[in-house]
């Protein structure tokens, strides 16, 4: 138990007004999903949310925070961290204590939950990542570059096309008897290869299993090329729910692949852990605006600055009509004006 939680409990025992328990919030706004995780001072996960972003990061964060009001009793949010591709805009919106890239956030989360892990495979909606850890420290990482083949969005799309709910996709692959070879280098090639194999009469199970193999092959050839993959291997991100992909990884790597609890919200969990650290476990006052921001109206507008030939695209982010942040200018003159 952390010092803070201990103090809070002692105070309660002494018959004072119960002191609000400090909790820490992590928000991971990605391309496909937005996740919220609430942890207590001891790092225990109290609450998780997995929401779809649908390209509207601000709205989805407000929706998530609204749902939080029902979860918090006498706890008080003592720190907030944001991560994911919309971490900056979200950070401005809630006034986060820490804004961190998702690679570091994922690594922090794993270092807490599985300290001896040496490899993290993370596959989300649009990104796939490989993080190499040694003694709990990131020593190397890689992310997919110009191609998103094999990420969650592509699997979603294929599941939809085949009329299989995405939740059943993995199970289907496990029932395959005779896996079909599918081209995995590019999502477009993979799709046409799948269609051709379907028309030849291969079973759905065999095709789905073949797709899992293809995606794993692509990952290993593309992202993991030249990297030293040692066990324990942790597999997280939304795609880790897919048992077919997991099995394909185990076969390809010849290693056991562990899917941790909360695998789908690990980024948010990492962000919450970072918020806990940076606020000194709640000893330093959080910058968080409070849950009332769910009632605020956020808007972003953009304009081209004509001040010099750079023609920067300036984004103005406002809350209830008041500009709270600007970005996009190279020279910094717009960033300096808010309010």
């Amino acid at each position: 138990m952390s010092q803070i939680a201990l103090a809070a409990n002692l105070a309660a025992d002494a018959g004072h007004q119960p002191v609000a328990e400090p909790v820490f919030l992590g928000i991971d706004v990605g391309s496909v999903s937005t996740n919220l995780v609430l942890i207590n001072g001891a790092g225990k996960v109290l609450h998780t949310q997995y929401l779809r972003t649908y390209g509207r990061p601000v709205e989805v964060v407000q929706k998530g925070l609204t749902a939080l009001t029902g979860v918090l009793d006498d706890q008080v949010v003592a720190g907030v961290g944001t991560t994911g591709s919309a971490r900056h805009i979200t950070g401005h919106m809630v006034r986060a204590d820490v804004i961190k890239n998702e690679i570091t956030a994922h690594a922090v989360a794993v270092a807490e939950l599985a300290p001896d892990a040496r490899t993290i495979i993370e596959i989300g909606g649009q990104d796939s990542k490989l993080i190499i850890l040694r003694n709990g420290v990131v020593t190397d990482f890689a992310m997919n570059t110009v191609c998103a083949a094999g990420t969650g969005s592509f699997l979603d799309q294929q599941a939809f096309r085949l009329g299989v709910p995405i939740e059943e996709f993995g199970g289907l692959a496990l029932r395959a008897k005779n896996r079909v070879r599918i081209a995995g280098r590019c999502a477009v090639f993979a799709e046409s290869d799948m269609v051709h194999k379907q028309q030849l009469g291969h079973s759905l199970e065999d095709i789905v299993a073949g797709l899992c193999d293809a995606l794993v092959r692509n990952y290993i050839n593309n992202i993991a090329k030249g990297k030293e993959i040692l066990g324990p291997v942790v597999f997280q991100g939304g795609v880790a729910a897919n048992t077919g992909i997991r099995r394909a990884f185990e076969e390809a790597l010849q290693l056991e692949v562990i899917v941790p609890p909360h695998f789908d919200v690990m980024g948010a969990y990492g962000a919450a852990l970072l918020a806990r650290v940076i606020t000194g476990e709640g000893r330093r006052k959080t910058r968080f605006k409070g849950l009332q921001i769910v009632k605020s109206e956020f808007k972003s507008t953009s304009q081209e600055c004509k001040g010099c030939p750079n023609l920067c695209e300036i984004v103005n982010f406002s809350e209830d009509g008041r500009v709270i942040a600007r970005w996009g200018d190279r020279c910094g003159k717009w960033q300096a004006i808010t309010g």
Partner: protein
Amino acid sequence: MNITFPRMGNSYNAFAHFINRLGHKAVVPPPLSDRTLSLGVKHAPEFACIPFKIILGSYLEAIEQGADIIITSGGSGPCRAGFYGILHERILRSLGYDIEVVVFDSIYQRPKDFFAKANRFRRAAGVSWPRFFYLIWEAWEMVKALDELERLSLDVRPREKSVGATTRALDQAYEIMAQAETNVDIQAARDKGLALLRGVPLQNKEYLLKIGIVGEIYVLIEPFANLNIQEMLGNLGVFCDRAIYLSGWTKENTVADHDAALRRTASPYVNQMIGGHGLENVAYAIRYQQQGFDGVVHLAPFACIPEIVVKSVFPRVTHELDFPVLDVFLDELTGKAGLQTRLEAFVDMLAFKRGKYQLGGVYT
């Protein structure tokens, strides 16, 4: 003659200066933009690399501004860039433009050809050979001055007190330089620019992470092609050094047998010419490691063969020298978020390695 040329980094100032001083009219290609890229992508072969597409788009914009002749450099060895001048000309002509691309190959490899082409521009301008060489020398002085300004900005930016102050000072310095006429003006503009940069208010920093940037020359030097990576790293509080400058700073400031020394350095990993600056980039990365840098960012155009070879060599360099390398492949994507994420993570990792990391915060 209304002469234009490929736009690459800050060098357009010096090229324009030379052409104008010679007595021709320089058409400076407009600053590279999404429009430039779209034009280039539309008319270039799909499989061409991003420098080819950007330069083509830029030529088209310069033609809109009245350019009727293009001067560019050639290339040799196993890299497609050697054919780019000819290919650009064919594409532009097929689009109906009456334009000529004059390709200057290496003066050492084809001196006769080089002087024949140079003579054409000299005679048309009606200047003597001594005057011609004097103007080349003068333009070269400007190239060196521009690079000196840029180099200083890399040292100042990570320490600046308010974001953007260095970029503002550097832009101003370039503007002053653009007004220079004689060599005396150039030296004065250089001093003024350096003073402007030295005047940027700084914060005290105990330690700066140091990252070397290597890669294919065009994406390395042109900020539009590399999403302005030098500025992104500077804003993350990192000092970065670039392996290649047009003025050949590295070449002039290191040992005399520069090329041979680079080959020796790279030899445990690459022992033959692989095109472009491939071999050199391996050597530069090793050199950065020897100089105590924290890591290297490797920039490459998507599908660039020499740099793909380099990429496949780097894991061994990383492993044997315990020296992190981040590969960045650049293509049509102009959104910076992906690169920003990778750079932030890379910086976190290096800071942690250096023991300069405060969990949750930026490094100190």
